[in-house]
């Protein structure tokens, strides 16, 4: 049984003009010990999906309209808030995008680590302090013992992210959700953090969800990949499969958009981008949501009227498109 199974999740945000359908029918699963990458552009709903799993969506405007989130046998959508509080930090942990603002500036790093430990593991103050030092060392913070008493503003961005990781791992969760863990960091620091995450994941035998818009990060860190667009999943496969044989035109475009030093034109070549913008999720089109930007969509294709379903093109390779690569190759001559 997979550790986490999300089925047909729909999270909507109530606004004056109606519901913004941020997550509109998303299903995936995460196996123990494996890493799932969720990739997509800003606004596609990947962060909201993660927050929905944790129950951290702001409840007044947002709500989970339907769907199920099964974690380790528990149905999270039915569970009371107090139960969720017990799960967060203990069974499922999350680290966020911006390390500069994710830590409380008026509390010491030590306090912010130990409070989690003491909340979930009933440790004494001294035990918690000792464990906190161990954790900081695990995430490779030098002079951990002294730095425990420091405030966040004395740490650099990369170090703060490591602290966030330490906090997340402190109670040995079964699942770690990393929302754009490297986006706010320098490129040089990114690699280090990703490495760290991978090492720790193996050590602690955790499952991980990495959310990013960077295909490079996905290639580096993910075992399985889910590509999201406009609140829906448009392609789902193992990482190797996805990079080897991408099917959805959007995935292909994302891969194309990666700048490369080889290929025609080399460094002089223009950067490829995807023209147009994602649809307004207040009133999404009934047709394929990618159609206006899709190079293969024709005016007379059914996808310009009706939305294509997610279908299993190959074993464990799902695509939501009327023009997946393999079918195009078959038709074109």
């Amino acid at each position, binding site marked *: 049984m997979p550790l986490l199974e999300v089925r047909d999740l729909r999270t909507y945000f109530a606004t004056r003009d109606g519901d913004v359908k941020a997550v509109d029918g998303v299903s995936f699963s995460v196996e123990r010990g494996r890493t799932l990458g969720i990739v997509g552009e800003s606004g596609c709903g990947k962060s909201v999906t993660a927050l929905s799993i944790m129950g951290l969506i702001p409840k007044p405007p947002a709500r989970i309209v339907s769907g199920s989130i099964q974690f380790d046998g528990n149905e999270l959508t039915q569970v009371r808030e107090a139960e969720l509080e017990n799960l967060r930090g203990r069974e499922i942990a999350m680290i966020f995008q911006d390390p500069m603002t994710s830590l409380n500036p008026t509390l010491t790093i030590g306090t912010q680590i130990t409070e989690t430990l003491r909340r979930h593991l009933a440790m004494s103050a001294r035990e918690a302090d000792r464990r906190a030092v161990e954790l900081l060392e695990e995430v490779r913070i030098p002079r951990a013992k002294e730095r425990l008493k420091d405030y966040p503003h004395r740490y650099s961005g990369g170090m703060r992210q490591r602290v966030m990781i330490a906090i997340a791992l402190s109670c040995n969760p079964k699942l770690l959700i990393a929302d754009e863990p490297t986006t706010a960091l320098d490129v040089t620091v990114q690699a280090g953090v990703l490495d760290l995450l991978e090492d720790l994941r193996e050590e602690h035998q955790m499952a991980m969800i990495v959310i990013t818009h960077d295909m490079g990060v996905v290639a580096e860190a993910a075992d399985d990949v889910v590509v999201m667009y406009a609140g829906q999943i448009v392609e789902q496969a193992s990482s190797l499969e996805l990079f080897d044989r991408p099917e959805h035109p959007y995935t292909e475009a994302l891969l194309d958009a990666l700048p490369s030093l080889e290929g025609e034109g080399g460094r002089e070549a223009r950067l490829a981008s995807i023209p147009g*913008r994602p*649809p307004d999720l207040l*009133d*999404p*089109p009934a047709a394929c949501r990618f*159609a*206006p930007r899709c*190079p293969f969509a024709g*005016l007379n294709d059914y996808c310009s009227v009706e939305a294509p379903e997610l279908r299993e093109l190959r074993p464990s390779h799902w695509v939501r498109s009327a023009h997946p690569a393999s079918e195009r190759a078959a038709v074109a001559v």
Partner: protein
Amino acid sequence: MVVNPQQEELRKRVLTRSGRVDAGAPIRQTSLWRDAWYRYRANRAAVIAGGLFLLLVVYVVFGPILSPYDPYAVDFSQAYQPISWSHPLGTDQYGRDLFTRAALGGRISIGIGFAATIAIMGIGIVYGSISGFVGGRLDNGMMRFLDALYGLPYLPFAIIVTQLFQTVNFYVMVIALTIASWFTAARVVRGQIISLKENDYVRAARAVGARWYRILGRHLLPNTLGVLIVFVFLELPGVILGEAFLSFIGLGINPPKASWGSLAQDGRDVYLAHPTMILIPSVAIAWLILCAFFIADGLRDALDPRTRET
């Protein structure tokens, strides 16, 4: 970038679930000011406050003109009339119609309020721009000077300034209240100028050789406009209360001249038996202040959505 004409066509043709054509297209953009106006309009409280504010202004402007009563005529036989059709707010101990006097008083009070606020803005802009724009030691010195002035408590300072003059009238009040409260405006303007100065578009303007007055006049000041507009409505209550307090204790506008504060002073000795005399100007003041605050809130939200609450 070549856009596929088929894509354009498709974009226009795509129907939404609700049947609206083109709804799958991305969101439209509007200009900053129109956007702000829409946002302001969407804020129900701000719109209502704006309306009530205008209503008050109409009342004080037209009230005395339309009223058949002489606000200064003393007629003891008409003293303490209750609220009635002929006297919508009753009369005071001298038989003067309160509806008229309240309107007349409003002219003075609101007039002082706006005049002082505008003067405060003026001084604040000059002082703050110089300090913020020039920076360095001049800025330091000017700010230290300002810090020193902060040590002078508002009301006592205003009182002292009023005493420089023979009698206290409208202009004296404006001057006194302005002098006693321009500091915050200067600070705000300076803060804005300093933060805007660092923006890239200022650097770009400098790079093409724009002179300081152009940078200040064309780039910096217009962008502080938003903050200043909000500030006007935040400063107004303070000034109006200042006038009310000073007049109430007898050191401002004194009866028989009407201002909301002097009306309150009229009612001071008789409030136990006739509370309406203090109530009326107080309600008027409170009305104005509440409106000003909601308008300021609405303007702030409209002009800078990032500061919005939930």
